[in-house]
């Protein structure tokens, strides 16, 4: 289902229009608070902020090209128990997809949340974002949005986005309650508001938004973006395959890894409450290290690096949404996302699954059928 409405933009000020929209949602009786990316005074940082006073939304900025954290985990901590009041959350498409995975893992709930999502223009890596804001200073977001939506110049700027965003084919949010369309829309005058669920529609109705039509040509604007992303993605898959096609090469790929486990902490779908790699199981006896060294002649310290990454691939690649926070969190610039997306694409395909696509499809490793995968059984040559 999808009902379409129009939100008018005054004085060509897209950001004010969005803030006013969020503020009017927050003023509704049954919405207690809204989680929205906001500029923090300090250091130009953008972080999700839970706002309950509509007057505090003046620095809300869901379009800032900053993506320091995948909010799915935050929304999970806000919804894992019922509180009797609804919240709204402004999420990127990959955050919604990760949230859908967490719902299926019973670590989050969609019962008391209204998800709002703006067409995603992507984001820079943490480091590049800092550089970008310090260059642009005032209204850096407006500059970014204008650049990204201006055809060729946008395609050019896209090459500076994080690799995860460049390889992402989900610019248009699918699983939101309310979608705010800006791609292929004349954003100087109006925004496209689409209610994708009954809950979303109820909100749009109580806001009294005028109904409208999806602008002609929106799909034609989206298509080349998706095509470009898919081309980049496939090239990335090939490159990564070639760089990791033996254990030796994989060791090289992770040569700079220092076992800090930041990628795991940043990962929205790494779902274990306690990771086995930080338990006593991996607090090896001193003599164990000696044994390894003696058996192989030499052993890299810290140990268990490949073991960690391969285990993580086995545990969460079917839930990987490709948000790229693993790469963002890596202190040594290892292209973690590239490898995880490459493997995830394959494992999800094997189970005809796509992470975040639907809350009705059970995670592949949580179910089984009596007759399936006969080809993996037996020792025929």
């Amino acid at each position: 289902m999808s009902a379409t409405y129009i939100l008018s933009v005054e004085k060509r000020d897209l950001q004010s229009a969005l803030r006013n929209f969020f503020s009017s949602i927050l003023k509704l009786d049954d919405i207690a608070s809204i989680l929205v990316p906001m500029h923090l005074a300090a250091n130009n940082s953008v972080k999700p902020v839970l706002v309950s006073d509509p007057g505090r939304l003046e620095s809300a900025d869901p379009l800032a090209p900053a993506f320091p954290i995948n909010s799915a985990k935050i929304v999970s901590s806000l919804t894992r128990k019922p509180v009797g009041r609804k919240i709204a959350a402004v999420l990127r498409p990959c955050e919604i997809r990760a949230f859908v995975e967490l719902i299926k893992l019973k670590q989050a709930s969609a019962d008391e949340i209204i998800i709002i999502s703006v067409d995603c223009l992507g984001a820079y890596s943490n480091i590049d974002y800092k550089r970008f804001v310090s260059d642009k200073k005032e209204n850096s977001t407006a500059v970014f949005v204008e650049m990204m939506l201006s055809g060729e110049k946008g395609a050019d700027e896209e090459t500076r986005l994080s690799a995860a965003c460049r390889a992402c084919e989900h610019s248009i949010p699918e699983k939101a309650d309310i979608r705010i369309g800006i791609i292929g829309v004349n954003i100087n005058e109006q925004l496209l508001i689409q209610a994708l669920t009954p809950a979303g529609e109820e909100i749009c109705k109580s806001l009294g938004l005028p109904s409208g039509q999806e602008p002609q040509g929106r799909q034609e604007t989206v298509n080349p973006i998706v095509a470009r992303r898919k081309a980049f993605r496939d090239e990335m898959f090939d490159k990564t395959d070639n760089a990791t096609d033996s254990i030796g090469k994989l060791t090289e790929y992770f040569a700079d890894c220092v076992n800090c486990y930041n990628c795991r902490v940043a990962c929205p779908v790494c779902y274990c409450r306690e990771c086995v790699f930080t338990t006593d199981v991996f607090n090896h006896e001193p003599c164990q290290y000696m044994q390894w060294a003696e058996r192989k002649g030499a052993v890299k310290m810290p140990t268990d690096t490949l073991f960690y990454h391969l285990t993580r691939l086995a545990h969460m690649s079917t839930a990987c949404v490709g948000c790229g926070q693993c790469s963002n969190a890596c202190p040594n610039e290892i292209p973690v996302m590239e490898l995880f997306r490459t493997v995830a694409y394959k494992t999800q395909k094997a189970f005809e699954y796509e992470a975040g696509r639907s809350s009705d499809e059970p995670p592949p490793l949580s179910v089984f059928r009596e007759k399936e995968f006969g080809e993996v059984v037996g020792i025929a040559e």
Partner: protein
Amino acid sequence: MDDFEPTIIAFVCNWCTYTAADLAGTSRLSYPKNIRLIRVMCTGMVDPQYIIKAFLEGADAVLVSGCHPGDCHYINGNYKARRRVKLLKEILPKFGIDDKRLRLTWIGASDGIMFSEIMRDLVRQIKKIGPNEAKLQMVI
């Protein structure tokens, strides 16, 4: 290569394949010493990380073997194991670990003869594939 003796780690379930191995023993059947049996209560408890660990430590092959479909002592552990093996067969070959090094079989408690035959066949096949690359390298 002729004197290559592979190391094969076999995760066998208590109720079927381990019992079959026991039967093979009491029937005085032999099987190659290359197989290192690890008895687990059910193949459904074999976490992918056990298998990954075995390969990284230099196992030339890993066998997971449990009850025939429908016979699982815990009703459905073997079906779960099958999905996990499927998953690893998607992941490991990407990193040069031959798909044939990871095997899954169903060997029932009364299949002592089949147990020794399968073990012999497996060792023969792995000898043909050669040693696991990880064994020769400094990977942990």
